[in-house]
């Protein structure tokens, strides 16, 4: 199918949208990004994802696919001439899927809790995030087998799953002075993040944490004004 027939309904700051865009970049698939504000549930968004009303949505011809990791796997399975995103070995695939599920079900949701938590509760959430990073450090050592990425020589499924989150993680770091990425505790992950910023598939899709912070502050101000 003509690759000009590919559209992504999304927003540039979204970690989930960026995963999809990274996967398309890995496969050298051209697409049109239809920017949408995820907080305003536009008619297009509701029509495209009636069940969840969330971005990203991938349009491929007349097909629409929702949920970022499902979209990434779809991209891997449709565009088979490009580099593989999931590992080829069944066990390695299982490990990549396991950790991607861990990131989405357990780890990344902690950042949402972080936003609303204060004092002791906040400290507890920060500790959980750091604990998760230690697990991911271990996962990196196992999956990378000495190479640059979770996926080996090239960016793969688990790299994409976690890379999408890096911008917001670094933004939280700066806002809280938390130092989530600590060379003494998670040296491999620190090295990995560095490599992401020079990898052609992902480097342009890692939002600047300072811009994310500005965006976050604007959003907070708007929410506060709205609730007064």
């Amino acid at each position: 199918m003509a690759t000009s027939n590919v559209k992504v309904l999304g927003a540039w700051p979204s970690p989930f949208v960026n995963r999809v865009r990274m996967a398309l970049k890995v496969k050298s698939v051209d697409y049109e990004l239809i920017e949408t504000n995820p907080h305003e549930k536009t008619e297009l968004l509701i029509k495209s994802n009636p069940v969840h009303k969330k971005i990203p949505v991938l349009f491929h011809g007349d097909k629409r696919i929702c949920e970022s990791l499902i979209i990434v796997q779809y991209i891997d399975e449709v565009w088979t001439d490009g580099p593989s995103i999931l590992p080829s070995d069944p066990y390695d695939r299982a490990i990549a899927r396991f950790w991607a599920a861990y990131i989405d079900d357990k780890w990344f949701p902690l950042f949402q809790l972080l936003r609303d938590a204060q004092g002791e509760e906040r400290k507890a959430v920060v500790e959980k995030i750091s604990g998760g990073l230690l697990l991911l450090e271990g996962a990196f050592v196992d999956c990378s087998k000495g190479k640059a990425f979770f996926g080996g020589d090239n960016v793969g499924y688990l790299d994409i799953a976690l890379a999408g989150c890096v911008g917001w993680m670094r933004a939280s770091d700066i806002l809280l002075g938390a130092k989530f990425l600590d060379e003494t505790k998670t040296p491999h992950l620190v090295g990995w993040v560095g490599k992401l910023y020079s990898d052609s598939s992902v480097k342009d899709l890692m939002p600047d944490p300072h811009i994310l912070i500005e965006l976050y502050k604007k959003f907070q101000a708007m929410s506060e004004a709205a609730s007064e």
Partner: protein
Amino acid sequence: MATGDVKVLGAWPSTFVNRVLMALKIKSVEYELIEMNPREKPEILLRNNPVHKKIPVLIHGDKPVCESLVIMQYIDDAWATGTSILPSDPYDRALARFWVAYIDDKWFPLVKVLIETEGEEERTELIQKVSEGLVLLEEAFVSCSEGKDFFGGESIGYLDIVLGSCLGWLRVTQIVLEIELLDRTKIPQLVKWADRFSSDDAVKDVLPKTEKLLELYRKIQAFLKAA
């Protein structure tokens, strides 16, 4: 790898364990089920699933695989010559994965909470949400099955197994709360599918009987009340 080397850490009443057993059955893979009480975290469980400390765990040779959906996809990948569990078409796979994620992230958690919910108002609201979810799943069935018997087409597939594994506790909930969730007037296709699924040779020996689950539920309730 020799298929004689497959173990599942699990428990017969568990929805998530049953998915794995059904997937292995479909692939005709022999396995040893190591039964355990998921509330007591035995050492073998902690060693093989240190991150979540939960069943099911599939141990293939010496390699543990955790999380029921990850395990099912692993089974499909590792025993590639057997009957396929996931559809072959990428879009059909994406749809199956979408609905499976919906079931696990949104719908089944409501079912699990429903049986424990005491307040009249809360219960009514939950029943409404569970029923709305079933209507969505009815629509999904119509589009995925394309007139055939199962979500997967002619034979049971990924989405069938995942939703099918939830039927046991759904039926127990209906009996205990005296409500009808699998309502033929509202979700006729899904009710017929549920009957077909439960009696299909591929899974009927693995799926726990509703009466057994009900007995277990009543035993647990009695135990909790006595405590």
